[in-house]
């Protein structure tokens, strides 16, 4: 990362000798690159497209401008205060904004930026209106004064270093994985125990730090701030810079700013053709650089590294796979049983559903269902398609809420809790179609099972992360999936995905585990394997609920069986009784198909 930062600095250096890349332009590029880093973080890791990030640049720049010109504050404290004020504004706006879904989020930000620019022009007496506010181009630091082009460039480079550090801090290790999880699939994130609202708010506020920093520097550097710099068009341009530079790469925003701003300066020389040339090059960048210039460079680097036989680089995760293997290879051999940790202790019935009801429109998908899951017992739920089995699992895991009835975990009423809270209390689940983060490796996905439910997004220790990695790897190896650990999920087949999702659920060390059709799509061999796994879960004391269509599988596996039809439990009992004889099976099949 340090090397990368150096490369960025070197390339952007005016000393590099690019035509028309003056010190001033290089400084401007640095500042806009910093502002863009916020857009980059929010879009690349938060999955939120903001068309209004110039707002925070504006609040910060105008806060500096007003406090220095109106109240005659010295520049440096004014800048720090301005960044703080902008972050505060970001917190308040964020409380509202991050609740919005994608289009509304984009347009609300766009509207706020326009509105802010309008507000500035509305009070020309204070803000200077459209002509803006001016100041001397100097920054007194105590030991020295920044007033030459070169010294401004140095200040900008320091700011770039700070923003790169903040960027990497924000997406390092566990945090980056959780952010990617929330971005890829908010539902799964909350099922795994992530408090999605808090996570989105945090990433939003952190992303606002970057434009705030840029804005605070921009005013004294330019000696001028106008509403044009903070409005909607500017915001859209910031987004464009990021996408051209490469979303999700920390240096992407700087590359984008370098290319586009330098290009603008360059085509300025072509007089009347400048806009045309700019348009053509802009479009060519958009056409031919997949994942932006940063993405193209990263791919090229990977290919080069592969050819030279270098080990593949890990993205921002902090530790290399090699060291992990060293940590846990000793532990693996002797104790495969440790692959499933003992379940959290719950007294009496692990989980109890009492009279749960849920209707969609006029259809009662789950109608007055009661069932009990005991610790160290495998309960199966069977029934035809549309019987309400998956809805019941959704109700228990908190993905959907019951209309009436209650759900108790170890005697505690959890009916009112959200999915994330229920997970933190010990309910884990899998999905019919596995839902994993495609862009992460198998190992990262498994680690998320445990990490997502941990207390704070911001507490992170390298040691704990190493431990988690070792445990996750051990679990994968115990499931004979060790060879997949470094593969990205997008390259896996269905059966492999099912097992990875299962291992992820186990990594949460749940008291109650809900498996939604775990055997569908698996080969016979894989089903045997799955069988063994579920038994191990039981031995560890977990209460397991399995939904399946495969009656043989259910009969061999389950300790108790419920049969569901049209939203109701129509039969229950032990599997041999219900499924042991041909006649009994026929009766079950009849009762579950009776009315459909």
């Amino acid at each position, binding site marked *: 990362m340090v090397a990368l930062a150096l490369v960025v600095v070197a390339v952007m250096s005016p000393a590099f000798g690019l035509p028309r890349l003056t010190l001033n332009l290089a400084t401007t590029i640095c500042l806009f690159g910093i502002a863009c880093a916020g857009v980059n973080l929010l879009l690349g890791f938060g999955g939120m497209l903001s068309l209004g990030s110039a707002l925070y640049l504006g609040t910060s720049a105008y806060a500096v401008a007003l406090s220095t010109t109106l109240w005659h504050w010295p520049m440096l404290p004014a800048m720090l205060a301005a960044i703080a004020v902008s972050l505060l504004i970001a917190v308040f706006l964020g409380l509202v904004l991050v609740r*919005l*879904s994608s289009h509304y989020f984009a*347009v609300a930000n766009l*509207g706020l930026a326009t509105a802010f620019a309008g*507000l500035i022009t*509305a009070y020309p007496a204070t803000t200077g209106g459209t002509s803006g506010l001016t100041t001397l181009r100097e920054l007194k630091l105590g030991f020295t004064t920044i007033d030459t082009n070169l010294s401004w460039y140095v200040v900008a480079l320091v700011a770039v270093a700070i923003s790169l550090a903040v960027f990497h801090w924000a997406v390092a290790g566990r945090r980056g994985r959780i952010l990617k999880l929330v971005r890829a699939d908010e*539902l799964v994130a909350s099922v795994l125990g992530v408090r999605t609202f808090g996570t989105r708010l945090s990433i939003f506020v952190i992303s606002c730090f970057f434009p705030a920093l840029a804005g605070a520097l921009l005013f004294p550097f330019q000696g001028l701030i106008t509403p044009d710099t903070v409005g909607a068009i500017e915001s859209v341009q910031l*987004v*464009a810079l990021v996408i051209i530079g490469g979303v999700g790469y920390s240096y992407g925003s700087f590359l984008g700013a370098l290319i586009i701003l330098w290009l603008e300066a360059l085509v300025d020389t072509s007089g009347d053709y400048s806009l045309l040339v700019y*348009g053509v090059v802009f479009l060519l960048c958009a056409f031919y650089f997949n994942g932006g210039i940063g993405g193209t460079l990263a791919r090229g680097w990977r290919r080069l590294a592969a050819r030279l036989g270098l080990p593949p680089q890990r993205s921002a995760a902090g530790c290399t796979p090699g060291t992990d293997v060293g940590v846990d290879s000793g532990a693996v051999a002797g104790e495969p049983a440790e692959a499933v940790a003992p379940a959290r202790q719950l007294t009496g019935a692990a989980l109890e559903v009492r009279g749960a009801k849920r209707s969609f429109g006029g259809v009662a998908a789950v109608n007055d269902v009661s069932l009990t899951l005991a610790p160290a017992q495998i309960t199966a739920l069977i029934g035809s398609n549309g019987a309400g089995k998956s809805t019941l699992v959704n109700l228990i895991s908190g993905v959907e809420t019951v209309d009436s009835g209650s759900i108790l975990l170890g005697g505690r009423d959890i009916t009112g809790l959200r999915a994330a809270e229920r997970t933190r209390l010990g309910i884990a689940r899998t999905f019919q179609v596995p839902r994993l983060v495609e862009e992460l490796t198998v190992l990262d996905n498994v680690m998320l099972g445990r990490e997502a439910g941990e207390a704070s997004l911001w507490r992170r220790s390298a040691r704990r992360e190493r431990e988690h990695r070792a445990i996750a790897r051990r679990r994968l190896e115990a499931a004979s999936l060790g060879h997949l650990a470094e593969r990205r999920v997008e390259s896996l087949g269905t059966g492999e995905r099912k097992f990875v999702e299962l291992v992820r659920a186990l990594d949460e060390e749940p008291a109650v585990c809900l498996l939604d059709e775990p055997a569908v799509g698996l080969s016979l061999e894989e089903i045997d394997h799955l069988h063994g796994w579920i038994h191990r879960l039981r031995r560890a004391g977990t209460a397991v609920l399995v939904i399946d269509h495969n009656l043989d599988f259910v009969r061999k596996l389950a300790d108790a069986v419920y049969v569901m039809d049209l939203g109701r439990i129509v039969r229950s009992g032990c599997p041999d009784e219900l499924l042991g004889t041909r006649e009994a099976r026929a009766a079950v099949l009849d009762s579950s198909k009776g009315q459909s």
Partner: protein
Amino acid sequence: MTLLLQTIFSSLVNGSVYALIGVGIVLCYRSSRIVNLAQGETYMVSGVLCAKMIEWGSPLWLSAVCGVAAAVVASMVFERLVLRSRMHWNPSRLIIVTVGVAILAEGVADRLIGADQLSFANLVNGAPLQLDGAAISQQDLLLVGVTLAATVLLILFFRSTLLGHAMTAVAENPRVSQLLGVNVGRMRQISYGLAGLLGGISALLLVPQSGIGYNVGLPLTLNGFAAAAFANMISPARALGAGMFLAVAEGIVGSYLNPALETPLVFGVLLVLGVAYLGRGQRFAGAVRA
């Protein structure tokens, strides 16, 4: 009362343009899931060509027809040459492609007409309509009427023709529609054509009073995008409503409070409304079974 009426009259004109561009963006989004930030350029193409042709001495009707035709063709060519082969791209990258096309269009127009503002005469002349002391010119009335008519026609088209149903199906779920035999590519082509038509027509009606330069596209697009976004990018009727509401609210704030406050206040209110009502409850959007 006069002030209120006058405010509403002049706001309706702005609202019509917001709505026409917004509906165009909605049409593009429905058919391709792309936020088309080049939509405002259809307005520019039509307005500039029409103004230039009149300058060269062609009759108004011919210039108008050519202008609108050019906008339609430009929009369809954009879909065919730029977007069609790239539909599988990441949406954010495609948005940037549309921005690139918008900049390119502005660059070409800049070369052709320079920085001058162009304009041409009203399509319809005659005494303004008077109502309780407030006046609205016939051209403005035409603009508002055309906007309403175009949206109503679109809604009828989507509701009651087979082609309209097919387009709605594509908007709901492109893959399933394709499996059911709808030619998704053709629906997209038609949608972009219609969007171009709306952009072109709005230029004919608005340019006589506001003039046109090479760089009018992007700001217009952003206003239209606001209207489209509050229609959740899917419903033309709601885009019309949102565009009109946006403009009238701006106008009322401008007339009664402070003209400079109109945008801040209106967006503030819209934001609150958006949070309270629009953006709610579509987080998981029924994708649980996947």
